[in-house]
Structures are given as structure tokens and as C-alpha cells.
């Protein structure tokens, strides 16, 4: 690991102030992606701003219409939250299936979204449920937030403070996981949201995306049968030792149908 300076932020405001003027400052949430990348020297920030003590970034609120989750809320806390289980059971289940128990005890929703790993689970939930990412500067709708592999709309130094999910009529997330890393080879979230039917896919290779043809078919008829004939092109999906692009395209179809059936 390259040397860095560590700063403890007491609040969200404190964190945003601390990062100003740092040559290559980064926020430290759970560190489950960042520390691993720093150990491999894939990432070498000059300064880390530790968010752990910023209690205003933690916690879950639900008012029946919207579930709002603070950026520093761990995957384990989202999975175990009675409010999330009641309002958006698919989201609680998704959080409970990220990585393994030790990772879920530390990793956070804010870190997962800022990182935007192309095989991560939360991006599928945020995009598929049409959530809004709140930062210290603005509110960014999911459709504007994800910008491809490890890229997001976040500007340098911009801090995710919370994510708000409109409660869907129904939703389900299905992941076909890599048994070793537990990341998605393909994961599909299908939802009937206040803004219409949405289908979001993660694991494709270059970042989470929506499947417009499936959404149109589902808007007319919410059933697995309605999307059986929607062809998902393999172009744009990645081929690696876990599966070819054609295999991934096939998985998108199968998992989307299962997700729709599971969310019936």
C-alpha cells in the first residue's frame, strides 16, 4: 500500500470540508473495495477521509412511500431492517446476498454505489427501482447516476449522503452468482414502480443497464410470458472465463422471466 494520511470526519459536512484541497483525497466507508484496491496498489489516494464516525450518514427511514437509506448503512443492517423487509423485501434480500457475512457487516450502500463495480448488486436495485442518490450537493436520479464501468456522475469530492427508493408495487432481484467471488455473473431486478415497469441488469460487463424492450412488454402485461420473446443482444456484454457474451445474454432473459414471476 502506498502511504496516505488519514482524517476522521465527525459528520457529513465535516467530511466534505476535509476533502477540499487534498491532492487525491478519497472517502473511506467500509473499505471493503477501497482497502483491497489500495493493497494491490490499484488505488493510491493521498488522503483518506474516514466516514465511520459521521452518524448523520447512517440509518434507515421509511414512510410507506419512500425508503431512505443513509450512505454509511451496512449491507447487514439493510438486510436485517424490518422497515426495508416490509416496504421493499427485494431490496432487503439483495443486501443479504451481497458477498458474505463478514463483508456485509462492513460494506456500505454509499461505498457500493460510488464504486459502481460492473458486477455489484446495489446498482441493479438503484436503477431498477428508479431510486435517487442524494449527495452533499444535489439529488441525482438513478438514470443519470451510473456512467459505465466504475464511473458515476459524482464529481470529485462529492459525497453520497443517502439513497431514496420509491416503494414499488412489486419487485424481485435474481442473481446468478460467481460461486467464488459471489459477485453477479448476471443479476436482474424487475420492478413495477410508481414510474412504470423497470428491468435493470448488472454483471453484463460495462455497468448496470435497463432493458427497454422488456419494460415496454411488461408495462402492457406484467407476466413472465410477456418477455419470453424479447431478444437480448449479446453485443456489448462481456465474455470471460465465467461465461460468453451469448451465455450472459441468455441469462438476462431467463433471470428476468424468473424475477417477474417471483415478483408476481
Amino acid at each position: 500500500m502506498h502511504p496516505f494520511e488519514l482524517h476522521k470526519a465527525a459528520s457529513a459536512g465535516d467530511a466534505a470540508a476535509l476533502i477540499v484541497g487534498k491532492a487525491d483525497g478519497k472517502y473511506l466507508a467500509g473499505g471493503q473495495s477501497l482497502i483491497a484496491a489500495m493493497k494491490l496498489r490499484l488505488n493510491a489516494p493521498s488522503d483518506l477521509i474516514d466516514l465511520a464516525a459521521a452518524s448523520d450518514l447512517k440509518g434507515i427511514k421509511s414512510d410507506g412511500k419512500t425508503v431512505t437509506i443513509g450512505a454509511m448503512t451496512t449491507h447487514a443492517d439493510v438486510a436485517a431492517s424490518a422497515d426495508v423487509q416490509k416496504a421493499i423485501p427485494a431490496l432487503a434480500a439483495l443486501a443479504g446476498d451481497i458477498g458474505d457475512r463478514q463483508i456485509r457487516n462492513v460494506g456500505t450502500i454509499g461505498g457500493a454505489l460510488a464504486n459502481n463495480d460492473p458486477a455489484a448488486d446495489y446498482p441493479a436495485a438503484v436503477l431498477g427501482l428508479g431510486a435517487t442518490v442524494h449527495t452533499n450537493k444535489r439529488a441525482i436520479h438513478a438514470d443519470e447516476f451510473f456512467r459505465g464501468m466504475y464511473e458515476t456522475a459524482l464529481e470529485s469530492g462529492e459525497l453520497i449522503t443517502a439513497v431514496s427508493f420509491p416503494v414499488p408495487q412489486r419487485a424481485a432481484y435474481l442473481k446468478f452468482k460467481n460461486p467464488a467471488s459471489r459477485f453477479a455473473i448476471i443479476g436482474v431486478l424487475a420492478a413495477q414502480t410508481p414510474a412504470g415497469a423497470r428491468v435493470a441488469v448488472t454483471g453484463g460487463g460495462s455497468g448496470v443497464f435497463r432493458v427497454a424492450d422488456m419494460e415496454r412488454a411488461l408495462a402492457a402485461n406484467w407476466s413472465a410470458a410477456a418477455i419470453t420473446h424479447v431478444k437480448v443482444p449479446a453485443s456489448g456484454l462481456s465474455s470471460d472465463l465465467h461465461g460468453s457474451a451469448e451465455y450472459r445474454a441468455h441469462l438476462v432473459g431467463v433471470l428476468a422471466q424468473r424475477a417477474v414471476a417471483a415478483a408476481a
Partner: protein
Amino acid sequence: MGIPVSINVNGRAVDADVDPRTLLVDFIRTHCRLTGTHVGCDTAQCGACTVHVDGRAVKSCNLLAAQANGATVLTIEGLAAANGDMHPMQAAFKECHGLQCGFCTPGMVMSACELSGKLTNPTDEQIRDALDGNICRCTGYHNIVKAVKSGLSNMQK
């Protein structure tokens, strides 16, 4: 350029100046000289380095010592009673032959102990699911599952 950390390890307050880069597992093994916590992969995959930080099982190879500043850390050495009697989970691993080479065992035991109070009368399936962060290259897991089942039930007594 050390930074001060103050961590309660197995009931003992440890104050030290550490390089910010120090991983929690290195703090435990090198600074505290508690070598029961193992490093199997150093990439957050295997779980051999699992310890509890404020009651939560974490992989100490993927955390900075500074992230545990002010926290209470429990390692495998902190489980047994002062008179040397094994913790019920340790006893269950011995009883059920839940280990062969023993390299994964400290992590398995720490991970299993965190389940106490979370899983009551778990099925084999639930135990296997819950141990998804711990890899064993020897046993084939059957006896580990047996040990965890028996250990959890004895912890409730």
C-alpha cells in the same frame, strides 16, 4: 507519521502509534503478538482472519487498524475461559472433529460464534449459508457444520 490508536483487544486496552497503512490483522498478529488469527489469502476471500469488532465478524485483513480505533476486538485467544476451559464452540470443533490442518479454524470459530443469538436451531443449509465467508481446504465442511450446530446449541445453555 504514526497515528495513535487505542483498541480493546480481548479485554486488554492496547494503545499504540501505527502507520496508517497498518491492517487490523497485522496489528493483532505483529503488535499484539496474537498469532491465532491467521492470514490465508490476504484478499478478503478465505475468512481465516475473521475477528469480532464490536461484536461483528469482520475480515481483519481487509480493514485498517485505524478503522477499529476505539472499538472492542475479540480474537480466538479471547474465547477460552481464564482457567483454560475451552469456549463451547471450540469444544464442539474438537468434539466433532471439525478441523484437520486447523488453518481455517480460528476464522471458522469466530465466524460461527457471531451466529449465536442470530440463528436458533439452524438447519445444515442455514449454517452453510452463514459460513459463506469462510473457506476450508481440508474437511469438506461436513464436520464443521456439525460442530457449529452443536456449538451454537451449547452456547445457549
